């Protein structure tokens, strides 16, 4: 299927099914029940899952394949968002031109930054990319305020030109981003007994783009180009003495992953038309590094899992507060209830960072290959024979899926 071998086709199909059914899968608990707190099937978070999935997939093309650890990828995301919002302000609220521009602009930025940074390798490369991203953040937050909106972020206004579109909607509000009239924020609810499932246009739009991005990533991983990138990670010296110049390959990988980041940034703006400078801060770059390593660098699905994991923590765990805990444990005797709540309390709500830190450590200590390795171990426990597939004569050994 799609010129993929069987294993990859199965993976793609699995991801496709999961993303399409996400509104069901992520909302396993009836609305209003005690466990509804853990439901993640609302449009904003689902959009974030796939958008950060795209970001991490792209980052993995650079880091997972070539081993070049960029610490400034958030800059491309930010640039992408700014481009998209400017497109909404100047041209029209249609998301296609906005996303196209964000990919192009992020691509141009990554050509320049990549060309300079790739003159060095290892940690020197990481620091160069970090320096560029931090400069972008600092300038966007301060002196570039007229272009970026600075502290408050770049946002739409009623008096924007929007030459191909209306400045204000019929109700006197700022129009919302859409695809030929189909608003990104439009949702339909399906109520099945106590369960509520939400189907959101923006989510499905992003999910389709993510699937395309994922498919492209598989193709890149399995292509000769992908093999060259892995060869760069493995032994750059041998590559040079094989008559190959590593620089164009790494630059191409850098630009591709920069464009993925730009795409993610553009989509973020399309879902929510505001671009803040914090998107480019070093912690945002660090986040995508963590997503990729946490999920499993160099694997196809790992970064997506890592992105989902971190975004879930950030959006769900941080919203649990003390009164919700009391609600969960009300059935315990009063003293015990207070004790249990007091024990859990430091790890939820404002303590979600603590939980995140502990989980990072746990994953890296016990699952060196990231979440993917965890999945494989579970898979092995259930007796699936992976070794069989490994030996099939596909012409390649592939990194674990």
């Amino acid at each position, binding site marked *: 299927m799609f010129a993929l071998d069987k294993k990859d086709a199965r993976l793609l199909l699995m991801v496709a099914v999961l993303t399409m059914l996400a509104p069901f899968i992520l909302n396993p608990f009836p609305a209003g029940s005690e466990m509804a707190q853990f439901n993640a099937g609302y449009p904003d978070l689902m959009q*974030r899952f796939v958008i950060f999935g795209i970001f991490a997939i792209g980052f993995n093309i650079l880091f997972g394949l070539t081993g070049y650890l960029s610490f400034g990828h958030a800059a491309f995301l930010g640039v992408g968002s700014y481009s998209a919002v400017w497109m909404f302000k100047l041209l029209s609220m249609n998301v296609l031109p906005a996303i196209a521009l964000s990919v192009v602009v992020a691509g141009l930025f990554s050509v320049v930054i990549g060309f300079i940074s790739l003159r060095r390798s290892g940690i020197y490369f990481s620091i160069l990319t970090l320096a560029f991203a931090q400069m972008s953040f600092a300038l966007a*937050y301060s*002196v570039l305020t007229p272009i970026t909106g600075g*502290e408050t972020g770049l946002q739409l206004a009623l008096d924007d030109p929007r030459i191909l579109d209306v400045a204000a909607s019929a109700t006197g509000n700022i129009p919302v981003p859409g695809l030929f009239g189909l608003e990104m924020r439009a949702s339909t609810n399906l109520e099945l007994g106590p369960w509520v499932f939400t189907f959101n246009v923006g989510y499905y739009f992003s999910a389709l783009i993510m699937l395309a991005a994922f498919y492209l990533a598989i193709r890149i991983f399995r292509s000769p180009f992908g093999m060259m990138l892995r060869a760069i990670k493995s032994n750059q010296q041998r590559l040079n003495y094989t008559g190959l110049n590593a620089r164009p390959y790494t630059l191409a990988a850098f630009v591709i992953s920069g464009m993925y980041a730009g795409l993610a940034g553009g989509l973020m703006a399309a879902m*929510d038309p505001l671009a803040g400078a914090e998107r480019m801060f070093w912690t945002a770059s660090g986040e995508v590094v963590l997503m990729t390593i946490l999920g499993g660098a160099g694997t196809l699905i790992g970064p997506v899992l890592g992105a989902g994991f971190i975004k879930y923590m*950030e*959006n769900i765990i941080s919203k649990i*507060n003390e*009164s919700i805990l009391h609600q969960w444990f009300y059935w315990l005797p009063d003293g015990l209830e207070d004790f249990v709540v007091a024990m859990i309390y430091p790890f939820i*709500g404002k303590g979600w960072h603590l939980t995140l830190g502990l989980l990072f450590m746990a994953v890296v200590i016990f699952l060196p290959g990231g979440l993917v390795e965890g999945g494989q171990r579970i898979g092995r426990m259930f007796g699936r024979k992976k070794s069989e597939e490994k030996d099939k004569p596909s012409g390649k050994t592939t990194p674990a899926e």
Partner: protein
Amino acid sequence: MSKTDVTRRGLLRTGAVAGAGLMVPTYLRAGGHEGFTNAPTGSTVTLGFNVPQSGPYADEGADELRAYELAVEHLNGGGDGGMLSTFSSKALQGNGILGKKVEYVTGDTQTKSDAARASAKSMIEKDGAVMITGGSSSGVAVAVQALCQEAGVIFMAGLTHSNDTTGKDKRANGFRHFFNSYMSGAALAPVLANAYGTDRKAYHLTADYNWGYTTEEAVKSSTEAMGWETVNAVKTPLTQTDFSSYIAPVLQSGADVLVLNHYGGNMVNSLTNAVQFGLRDKMVNGKQFEIVVPLYSRLMAKGAGANVKGIFGSTNWHWSLQDEGSKAFVRSFGTKYGFPPSQAAHTCYVQALLYADAVERAGSFNPCAVVEALEGFEFDGMGNGPTLYRAEDHQCFKDVLVVKGKENPTSEFDLLEIVEVTPVDQVTYAPDHPQFAGGALGTCNPGA
């Protein structure tokens, strides 16, 4: 069971059980029965408290959250009722809002506009919140305000001081109770002129982002109007922690007053550094060197410790105010938590009550009805004297406090003393004032 316990546990539990059967959150653009986003259909109504829980303003966020919990308790008829008894509008009965029990959800803004919007969105989309409130910086307030406008819910800003929130970035669905940069400047200038004379040379250090710009502009124009001269204004990066290289040249410039347009950690550090350099022991131009901090908060004063002693600044509200509303609020907050509330807590508490009252008076949760009820609303008994929610820009106009770091604090909360309560007339400006130019309120958006 005490009354506090009822609200904290019992009610929520009941709400949840009831919710399982009856209340299904209606989502953005979906639940079209009432014609607006997240119309509450069951016996409860959900408010979203979006405050910084991680990052540098986490303590301020925690105080805001305490205030909200207190407000919910009072709205549901628990506790001593707090300001409900002093509030000039008597629409609130202590039986929830329009008879619906008030529930709330909380989120973490991280003091980042992206995270704040994500958190607000989840409250709107997942939890069915009909109003979002909170925040501890203008960046967040502006970002969330724009989001609420789009989504069709009401935004009651928490702590946000930049002119832009009700200036160029104002929105019809957003309301600000807190004061702003212009008011700080207008209130401070006469007090400064009085204390330090009209022949002063000021040196500004300004945080290099929107709030810093508006504050610098406001303080500059109002002090210059009093006859002060501005020698220099230097922008400092947000991420700066050591301000020595910005403070060292101040004396060379011939300035005799240093204005620190900084907030939060920036302010704590720059003030600490300035005092360390011994600036306040110096005589320049034959005058004692002075430092001014336009926007004070008690938590910042606590962070800067003894360095704040004798330093002027402005604040929205302070627990030592002696009007009935403030006293009632301080009493219920102090009784519940054991220490006096901060200005952020006050503003958040008041905003929650004002929203509830507006709904009650309008007879509907519909954002457009709420906007109508709040626009031009005059009230009293919430601290700061008679107050107007101006229709043109959704900014509250009320008395502003000029405060000074206390010389002999009696406790860790007793750090500021009120120097003057600047009457509202003195800080009122025209809606089209140049510092607030640009932007348009637009029309209210009820969503669905």
